[in-house]
């Protein structure tokens, strides 16, 4: 079963932390938030009796082929396009897959138009995310819509990772 990758959850929480969402929380409260989230752990016993902790998150979501995700790219554009073209669906429900693929195809076309204006593309995805978040809230039984929204979450993650990769490159150049 394909699980939501740990990095996706970490990205989300880091973005919130940078956004100042947890400024008013004490460290104790923040730890509690993390423990209650995807990054929280629970004890589980294996068949062989060995005890180890594991995440309690088991949602099936598509993921990017690991070799593609971990590769090094000369530009953000190549990073994004390669990731979008190498999504692995595994056991993602067919009912949601249609909406998911529709969104991915759409954004692949869009990014090709925005190759020289990635900032505008980033902004477009953010606006679309807010719109679809509301739509999903109001009709959470529509699988096509939920699939489309899942794809938007993936889009956001890819954009964020491509940004981080280039900022890491700059940090490496500038040094400490």
């Amino acid at each position, binding site marked *: 079963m394909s699980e939501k990758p740990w990095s996706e*959850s970490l990205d989300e929480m*880091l973005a919130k932390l940078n956004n100042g969402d947890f400024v008013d929380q004490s460290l104790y409260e923040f730890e509690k938030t993390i423990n209650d989230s995807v990054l929280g752990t629970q004890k589980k016993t294996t068949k062989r009796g060995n005890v180890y902790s594991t995440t309690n998150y088991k949602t099936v979501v598509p993921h990017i082929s690991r070799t593609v995700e971990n590769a090094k790219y000369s*530009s953000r554009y190549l990073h994004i396009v390669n990731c979008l073209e190498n999504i692995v669906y595994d056991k993602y429900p067919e009912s949601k897959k249609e909406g998911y693929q529709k969104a991915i195809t759409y954004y692949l076309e869009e990014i090709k138009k925005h190759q020289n204006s990635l900032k505008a593309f980033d902004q477009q995805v953010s606006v679309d995310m807010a719109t679809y978040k509301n739509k999903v809230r109001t009709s959470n039984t529509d699988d096509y819509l939920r699939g489309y929204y899942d794809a938007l979450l993936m889009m956001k993650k890819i954009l964020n990772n491509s*940004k981080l990769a*280039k900022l890491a490159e700059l*940090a*490496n150049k*500038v040094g400490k």
Partner: protein
Amino acid sequence: MARNRRRDSGPGALIAFILFISVFSGLAELVFGGAFGLIGIFFEIIFPLLLIGGFLIAPFIFIAIGIKLIVDAIKKRKGKSTSNTVASTATPTISHKKLLRKIEKFFEKNQQLNIDDETYLVITDKNDISLDTIDIYMREEYIGSLKDYFNAYPNSFNSLSNLINKYLNNKNLSETQVVEEIQKEIVKTFDKDCAFYIKELSQLKDGIENQQVTKGLEETIHHLQSIKKIEDEFTDSKNKTIKLYQYYLPMLTDIVSNYKRLSINVNNTADFKNSEDRLLKTTVLINGALNTISSSLVEDYYTELNVDMRTLESILKKDGLVDELQNQEG
């Protein structure tokens, strides 16, 4: 027999006894006299000499200690540290406001500020200059705002701020870019592995006074040690941890470095408190992620082990060895 005994206790025995006592007392006087003589010499000559020497040397020792304390205090004030890891990061920081004013002035006459030959800054709103409205471009492509850079790599951002400040202070602006010598070792980032970060974080941890911070970092190091063990034994797992070494751990080490830099130059308490809060929360987050990763790696390890066991079992069954073993156990 009785006659013989009387003969033995005659004047000869008395003389022998007196002689023995004389020799013994003579020897005792020699030994004790010598020993007390030596003690006498020690107290009369050596001890006073040591006392005088002590009085003469003690002021120099106190002066040396005093000089060391003064030098340390000056170093602390200037932001120098004895730790090699922090030394390079402990340069004076230009405040954001001051930097933004200088950048604003620069953009009154210029379109872009070149960081190196492939990276530059542009402003998106001339009326509202902030870290959010200054974009970074690399190879003609938007890679984020200065705010994104500050959030991800605060310590590196500090270095860049200092470089920009230094560059903009040069009135002639004869140089065309902020960073003249570009480090071409970009690949290096991706070569840094678990062992590297265990060492890096252990070094950074030294000298941090806040116990909550050190405890958090110790937990990070502990998780990394567990991950390293799994990676060493189960090499396929390395594919799962690449992002850790590419983004998250560089980010964490940068935040720790920034925190250490601010702890040395405690000029702005608010900045330091923010940095401490951010570091503590980032550590909690990353430790949560590391815990999840190591658990997931352990699960994979057991799955792999189970597959191997099943393969072995089927081979044994095929050779008719499983029943034999079961019978033996029964």
